[in-house]
């Protein structure tokens, strides 16, 4: 529902701005009151909404899974345990399918990635105005703040910080295990001796910069593509929900059509939500497998 006091552009911008905590130009610390202010805060600022929702959803995931794990029994499972087992076995099969080395960290990490990202993505299905409006209302009630300057972005995966945070952590693991499994020399060789190979030393030296460039690009492309794929899909999905929500500001027919559209898009979006979580997990497994394997 587009607020009457907001233009459509303002409405959209309001929805796309994070609640940012950082230092104001005057030196005081606090929340940004506009997207321009948030941009001014630079790197030393934090998105309160992204952190809050991602930590909350991660905690929900770990709470339920931990509860199921504690009361786990080898007998006939029921309810929560059944559900948890189903997911865990699905992840385990995926990991066994694409990860050939031995590493006890990969499977739990895949599980965390999949469920966490899935939950964060699912926030996209909450009607776009509910939580931001509620937050604005609470803020105006408690702190006498102007709701139009209280920002709340509910879907952490539409914040590139979240997706890059994940992919860079994965990237760090890829580098770590590459060096650990192959040694610094082995890793360096992997970056410089492929894809152009030669047996003679002169040619090797000639190929070295070319190989380093190609391998370096493909190495760096991993975290970037991982993060941007997830972010792009979810951001686009969120954007469409926001655009559909604009229709509620029009007449009755338009609003009704908007309702139908929102439902249809939500149904389709469930697929994207699941698929993106799965892709992120699978690619992480594959990248880690590549880090473990020798050429």
């Amino acid at each position, binding site marked *: 529902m587009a607020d009457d006091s907001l233009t459509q552009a303002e409405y959209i911008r309001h929805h796309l701005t*994070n609640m*940012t905590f950082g230092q104001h130009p005057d030196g005081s610390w606090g929340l940004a009151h506009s997207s321009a202010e948030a941009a001014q805060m630079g790197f030393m*600022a934090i998105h309160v909404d992204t952190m809050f929702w991602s930590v909350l959803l991660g905690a929900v995931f770990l709470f339920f*899974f931990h509860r199921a794990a*504690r009361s786990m*029994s080898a007998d006939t499972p029921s309810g929560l345990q059944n559900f948890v087992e189903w997911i865990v076995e699905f992840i385990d099969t995926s990991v066994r399918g694409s990860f050939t080395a031995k590493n006890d960290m990969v499977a739990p990490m895949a599980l965390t990635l999949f469920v*966490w990202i899935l939950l964060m993505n699912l926030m996209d299905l909450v009607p776009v105005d509910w939580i931001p409006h509620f937050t604005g209302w609470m803020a105006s009630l408690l702190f006498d703040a102007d709701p139009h300057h209280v920002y709340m972005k509910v879907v952490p995966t539409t*914040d590139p910080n979240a997706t*890059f945070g994940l992919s860079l*952590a994965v990237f760090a693991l890829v580098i770590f295990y590459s060096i650990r499994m192959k040694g610094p020399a082995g890793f360096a060789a992997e970056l410089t001796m492929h894809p152009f190979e030669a047996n003679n030393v002169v040619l090797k030296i000639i190929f070295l910069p070319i190989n380093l460039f190609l391998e370096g690009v493909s190495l760096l492309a991993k975290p970037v593509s991982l993060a941007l794929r997830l972010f792009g899909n979810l951001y686009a999905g969120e954007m469409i929900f926001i655009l559909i929500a604009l229709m509620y500001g029009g007449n009755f027919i338009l609003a009704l059509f908007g309702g139908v559209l929102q439902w249809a898009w939500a149904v389709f979006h469930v697929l994207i939500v699941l698929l993106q979580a799965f892709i992120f997990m699978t690619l992480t497994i594959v990248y880690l497998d590549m880090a473990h394997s020798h050429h």
Partner: protein
Amino acid sequence: MNINLTLIGQSITFAVFVWFCMKFVWPPIMQALEERKQKIADGLAAAERGVKDQELAQAKAVETLQEAKEQARTIITQAERRHAEIVEQAKDDAKEEAARIVAAAHAEVEQEASRVREELRGKVVDLALVASSKILEREVSVEDHNAMLEKLSASL
């Protein structure tokens, strides 16, 4: 859409979540799944063993039955043979007995016949004596005619 500290915050959060999951969530679940797998495998093995045992028992039962039948057949054969023997023996005994009785009867008849013959012989002598005395009209003295009578009696 600014890149800021959230990036690092997310990475740290992720690391903590993965650590927690790896420590407290994944191992107990996998352990329980393994345990169940083992249990099912054991159950299947036990079932298979049961089937095999049952098969063995059945084979054994069939064997026992066969043995019993064999034994029964042997016993019957023995009994039949014994029966035949007894019948044969009885027949032999009866034949012997019959022969004995026949022989005894024969002997008796023989004895009777010779006794009767003796008697007849005596009677004939007497008769001859009476007849000859009638013919001669006088008594034939035994002492006088003993020799003649003896000759007569021997010729009869």
